């Protein structure tokens, strides 16, 4: 008899289940009054705070929820956010005049105390491990009056303004609220900020939804609801787009561009995404301390061939380890491109590669290239490189590792040739250079490169403004490339696809990093 009951329960469950099935099939996203913009991202997160993991997706999310003192505009320039204006003395003492009408999404006013609290929160490596570096040891943030804030740095840092933007290291939240929560960024304790949107729901590794908030100083945004779906698998994302589950697909892989185009009513836009992909040689690994070996490898890689086959032509052969579009605050991309192309770099030439390898005096040797499993393109490119290096006497094994392991071992003296794939979150032209060219200590750059001669140029970059320090920056890059410490391969090209229910104006590599980014979208009724 007990069994009968079990069967009865089971049957009841099945019935319920079938009802569920019927109940939801008809209830496809109601398109009658389109109020929600649905974006599909090729990445996934389990928590919302950019300060914790610092993934780019978290930056996109916090961008519209939490504000910094300043923000990035669509033009690539710094714009006011919580600060209306600011000035600096010798790039060391920074004074910010705050907006008086800024309110958090719960309706309370943003105070200087909240901002100072948020800055300290960001500078604390225990709370914000991935952004704490934005604030140098010994900096001081103090309140001058109810609407003035002073930050004193221990040394001159011309690019500090990026640190207090929400593209760098500041996401202002309410002190009283933050102190009362212990799981900020989780599904229970969503973020509280003063940005144009507030988070409605967060389902880790699945999606996050936003609604426009009425208290934003810039006025209530046009698009009422935004939903971001995390779909790491490219194939699934394509299928979801085809079915109309998402309106806008970000970072469409080059190999799928034609598949997206084949969906009727779809617009595919490509844009330079400012990313840099190249090889880094670890000078502490023999024989890569030999400049001729490095040059031989640099000559042997057919970057254009890789772009044409593996990237389906979507990429630009690189002549430097920073993309031309990264200079947008100081130069037009074409002007920057011309300057970068004039820097020393080694074009594909297998004869020269053999010549250099002979010059090096090294015997044929073998090495391993590792790539992260989150970047299968680099795996394929590795196989192509291995094929080419075989010709000059270098045997290459290719191995896949997890992203964490790959990052952990970067510059650790174990990988002679390593991939570098980096998309700068800020528009600071020197962002990559201040890492690559820092030869002051152990592991300060990924190549274990120790050459004092480049330091004066780097110091000049720190002290001068971006425009004034441009020539120093280029000279520094040239020194590194002349020695073939880094072998640039390509500058990335991104693609986005959207269906006829949305219109997008002027999509660029920093659209999702700019103030109130949903304003670039219009929903077609």
């Amino acid at each position, binding site marked *: 008899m007990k069994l009968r009951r079990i069967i009865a329960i089971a049957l009841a469950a099945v019935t319920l289940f079938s009802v569920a099935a019927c109940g939801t099939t008809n209830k496809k996203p109601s398109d009658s009054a389109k109020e929600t913009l649905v974006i599909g991202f090729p990445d996934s997160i389990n928590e919302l705070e950019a300060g914790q993991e610092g993934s780019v997706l978290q930056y996109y999310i916090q961008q519209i929820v939490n504000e910094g003192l300043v923000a990035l505009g669509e033009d690539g320039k710094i714009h006011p956010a919580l600060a209306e204006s600011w000035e600096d003395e010798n790039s060391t003492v920074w004074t910010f005049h705050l907006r008086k009408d800024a309110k958090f999404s719960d309706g309370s006013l943003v105070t200087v105390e909240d901002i100072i609290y948020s800055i300290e929160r960001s500078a604390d490596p225990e709370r914000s491990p991935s952004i704490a570096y934005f604030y140098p040891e010994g900096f001081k943030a103090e309140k001058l009056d109810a609407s003035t804030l002073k930050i004193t740095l221990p040394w001159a840092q011309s690019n500090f303004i990026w640190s207090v933007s929400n593209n760098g290291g500041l996401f202002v939240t309410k002190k009283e609220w933050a102190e009362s929560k212990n799981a900020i960024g989780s599904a229970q304790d969503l973020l509280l900020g003063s940005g144009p949107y507030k988070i409605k729901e967060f389902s880790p590794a699945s999606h996050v939804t936003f609604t426009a908030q009425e208290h934003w100083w810039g006025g209530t945004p046009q698009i009422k609801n935004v939903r971001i779906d995390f779909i790491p698998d490219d194939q699934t994302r394509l299928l979801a787009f085809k079915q109309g589950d998402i309106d806008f697909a970000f970072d469409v892989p080059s*190999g799928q561009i034609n598949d997206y185009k084949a969906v009727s009513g779809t617009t595919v836009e490509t844009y330079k995404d400012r990313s840099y992909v190249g090889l880094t040689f670890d000078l502490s690994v023999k024989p890569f301390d030999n400049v001729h070996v490095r040059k031989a490898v640099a000559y042997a890689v057919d970057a254009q061939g*890789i772009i044409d*086959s593996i990237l389906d032509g979507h990429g630009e052969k690189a002549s430097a380890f920073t993309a031309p579009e990264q200079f947008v605050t100081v130069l037009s991309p074409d002007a920057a491109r011309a300057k970068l192309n004039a820097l020393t770099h080694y074009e594909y030439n297998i004869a020269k590669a053999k010549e250099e390898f002979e010059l090096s005096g090294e015997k044929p040797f073998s090495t391993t290239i590792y790539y992260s*499993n989150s970047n299968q393109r680099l795996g394929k490119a590795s*196989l192509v490189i291995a094929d080419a290096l075989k010709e000059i006497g270098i045997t290459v094994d*290719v191995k*896949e*590792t997890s992203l964490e392991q790959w990052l952990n071992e970067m510059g650790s003296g174990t990988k002679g040739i390593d991939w570098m794939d980096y998309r700068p979150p800020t528009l600071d032209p020197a962002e990559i250079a201040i890492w690559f060219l820092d030869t002051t200590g152990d592991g300060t750059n990924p190549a274990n490169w120790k050459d004092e001669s480049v330091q004066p140029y780097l110091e000049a970059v720190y002290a001068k403004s971006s425009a004034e320090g441009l020539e120093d920056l280029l000279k520094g890059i040239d020194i590194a490339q002349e020695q073939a410490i880094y072998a640039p391969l390509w500058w990335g090209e991104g693609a986005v696809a959207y269906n006829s229910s949305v219109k997008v104006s002027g999509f660029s590599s920093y659209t999702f990093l700019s103030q109130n980014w949903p304003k670039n979208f219009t929903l077609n009724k």
Partner: protein
Amino acid sequence: METLTNNFEKKKKLPPISIILSGVFLLIIITWVIFPSVFAPNALALDIKNTKLPAGSEGHLLGTDALGRDVAKMLIAGSSSAMIGPVCIAAGSLIIGLLLGSIAGWFGGFLDKIISAYADLTLSMPSLLLAIVAAAIIGGGYWINVLVMIVLYSPFDIRLVRSAVIQQKSKPYIESTRMFRLNSFRILAVHIFPNIAMVVMVNFFLNIAYGLMSMSSLSFLGLGVGPKEADWGRQIADGRELLTQNPAVALSAGIVIILTAVSINLIGSYLLERSGVDE
């Protein structure tokens, strides 16, 4: 009674057509494994000028993959990584099973307790999940996965051998050999193993099928062979992104895995039936 006569009748008949087909299919796979260079010379040669060709392209029956490698050749070359690992898993697990299982069954006592506890513990754990976690911690790799699988598969063999040994031990003819104080190893080897050989062999066979599925699952998750090698599980993972350009990459590997596993299982359960062992 009924089953006995049934078996007797079956022995006179030819094996059913499904068994013959499975056998032929497995023979083909085995020849691929033994002579890869005959059927697929230079299977791993890249050709970045001819990538993602669809199936049926000239010179490429199943098209090419994202690196311009011939899919049909990759399939043939992938057979060795698909089969050799699982055979080693089954063999390793068999050896451990025979060794520990007969020790536990024959000597009993404390040794039995320890060995059985180990087997019970491991058997109650989700083996595939443990394999995935272990592979992820160690960083994966083909032979590491084989070792992990042997550790996780052997408890079943241990149990099988142990209970068979215990069953045989109590039979009068063994009791009598013990009276003659024959040495344990000799009794086991001469009198007991021949009696349990069939069960153990069938299990060996079925383990190959399980091994194939587990190993290809790990490869699919990127925890198996490196990108340079040919492997069916890997081919499915790589082929996912080419589903619209050349579906043959993923589909052909998927079909071959399923057919191989089905063939092994069919033959395994056929042998089991013929051996008259009750499931």
